[in-house]
């Protein structure tokens, strides 16, 4: 199949390569030509604009940083919509606000272009191992059409509901992982400051009701003081900003998420933004004078 891919960063590059290895012909556009280098040895064509990509592809994936980037690539001048052929499907795998996804979906529907929001969880490692969790919003028939391609990129793909529902699920994911990382960091710091071996605490808790993948994986990285990303703190800050904006719009109290969002603000403001979210531990230590 002729497939477009835009956004060849940490996440997008391995995903596009999975599609190429599965025998699909790639059509690419990148702001920086260097991003196309890793595709020299696969069936991939570089194009001058997103519109050109759309002219050659049946399905186009986007994986960029934030809502304005998605809008620019999809609806901007020389954007995907400008080059769309009948039947084009655009699949956005970026994490953006549900309301923004709905706006883009509606604008595309007016032009007869199908749209799925399909944000992912699992990080760079999940992308490289094609083990992502993919949360999809859109219609069943479009989902069915794209599903075989999702299966090349992820281990678990779920159609959550209509347009924007994938982003709602991703927001829920970011609430759980953000608050979860903060809770694990607080618990391990509490153990250490109480003079107890935090590693033993973690090991004991893994067997009980406090077990979570975050306690297991992020907890271990905190104990190892391995703060390399992974998932950068500034990105988690951005995702929680989306959550808090939606809560504002909905008139919905999210006190734990709000506390965590402020912790991520402090991380970015104190120079920890480029480190993994497990560096929350360092912030907690600093806050209490260590």
């Amino acid at each position, binding site marked *: 199949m002729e497939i477009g891919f835009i956004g060849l960063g940490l996440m997008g590059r391995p995903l596009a390569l999975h599609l190429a290895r599965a025998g699909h012909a790639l059509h690419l556009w990148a702001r920086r030509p260097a991003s196309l280098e890793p595709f020299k040895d696969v069936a991939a064509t570089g194009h001058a604009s997103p519109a050109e990509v759309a002219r050659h592809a049946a399905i186009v994936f986007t994986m960029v940083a934030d809502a304005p980037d998605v809008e620019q690539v999809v609806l901007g001048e020389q954007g995907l919509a400008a080059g769309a052929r009948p039947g084009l499907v655009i699949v956005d795998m970026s994490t953006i606000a549900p309301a923004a996804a709905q706006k883009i979906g509606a604008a595309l529907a007016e032009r007869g272009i199908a749209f799925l929001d399909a944000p992912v969880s699992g990080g760079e490692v999940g992308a490289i191992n094609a083990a992502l969790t993919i949360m999809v919003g859109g219609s069943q028939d479009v989902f069915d059409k794209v599903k075989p391609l999702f299966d090349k990129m992820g281990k678990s793909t779920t159609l959550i509901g209509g347009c924007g529902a994938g982003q709602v699920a991703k927001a829920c994911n970011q609430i759980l992982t953000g608050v979860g990382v903060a809770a694990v960091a607080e618990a391990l710091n509490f153990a250490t400051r109480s003079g107890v071996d935090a590693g033993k605490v973690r090991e004991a808790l893994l067997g009980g009701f406090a077990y979570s993948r975050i306690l297991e994986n992020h907890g271990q990285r905190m104990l190892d003081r391995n703060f390399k990303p992974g998932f950068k703190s500034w990105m988690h800050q951005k995702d929680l900003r989306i959550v808090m904006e939606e809560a*504002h719009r*909905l008139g919905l109290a*999210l006190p734990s998420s709000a506390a965590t969002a402020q912790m991520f603000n402090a991380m970015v*403001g104190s120079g920890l*933004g480029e480190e993994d979210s497990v560096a929350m531990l360092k912030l907690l230590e600093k806050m209490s004078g260590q």
Partner: protein
Amino acid sequence: MRVGFIGLGVMGRPMAENLLRAGHELGVWARRPDAAAALLAQGARGYPSPQALAREAEVVFTAVTASADVEQVVLGAAGLIHGVRPGTLIVDHSTIAPSAARRIAARVAAGGGDFLDAPVSGGAAGARDATLSIMVGGAAAALERARPLLDVLGKTVVHIGPSGAGQVAKACNQMTMVAAIQACAEAARLAAAHGIDFGRVRGALTAGSAGSRVLDFFGGKMAARDFAAGVEARLHHKDYALFMAEAARLGAPLPVSGQVWQQLNALMGNGWGREDTSSLLRVLET
């Protein structure tokens, strides 16, 4: 002086009336003609567009709702900027994002005019009684030209700094005040949980170290269970979205504000947005 006023709502109308009363020639433009009727009856002159108003005024005041409204009135089609002459001064009393104020000021400066962000604190009563606090961002020289007019509108006029600085001060004002309202609501809730009359507690606290204007005013409303606005809570709620977004952009942690924001979200979810912010007490009673 020939002055203009746009935004004749709860705050704008009494401010415009004070300018008229001080003997200034007042021109107005309003999206809905009936909003201007009272002022026209008092001798103000109506204009068909902000642009037309700007052509004939030396200083134009705006007091509208959000960043987008200010941008529309100042920079939009037939906006003020299209009628600006060298030296025309625009004074915006709206509460908007500092970054929006900076952007608009730069555009007005490019058009040969001056722009001050001058948000106010003091509510409708302060606007009526000309006792507002006015926090100003922009060039000192422009403020000196506006000062005789601002002295007609408020009691305290402070030059905070360059463009946007007035809006930063306003954000600080809002977060400090609403956090105090929340603290007041929690005190009222605690007193009630003990079966004690909050009115009496408040009376005792007023003279002590916990005494504050918020305890006097909002505490009084809570004690009386008078939740009629005052300041509509939805306006405070709107302000939180603005400055919390800026705080995220700047990497500034605001843990208490983050929590107060959630209480305001709950207030909105209960449908109390058009009632007074002292309704934060009712959130604690659900």
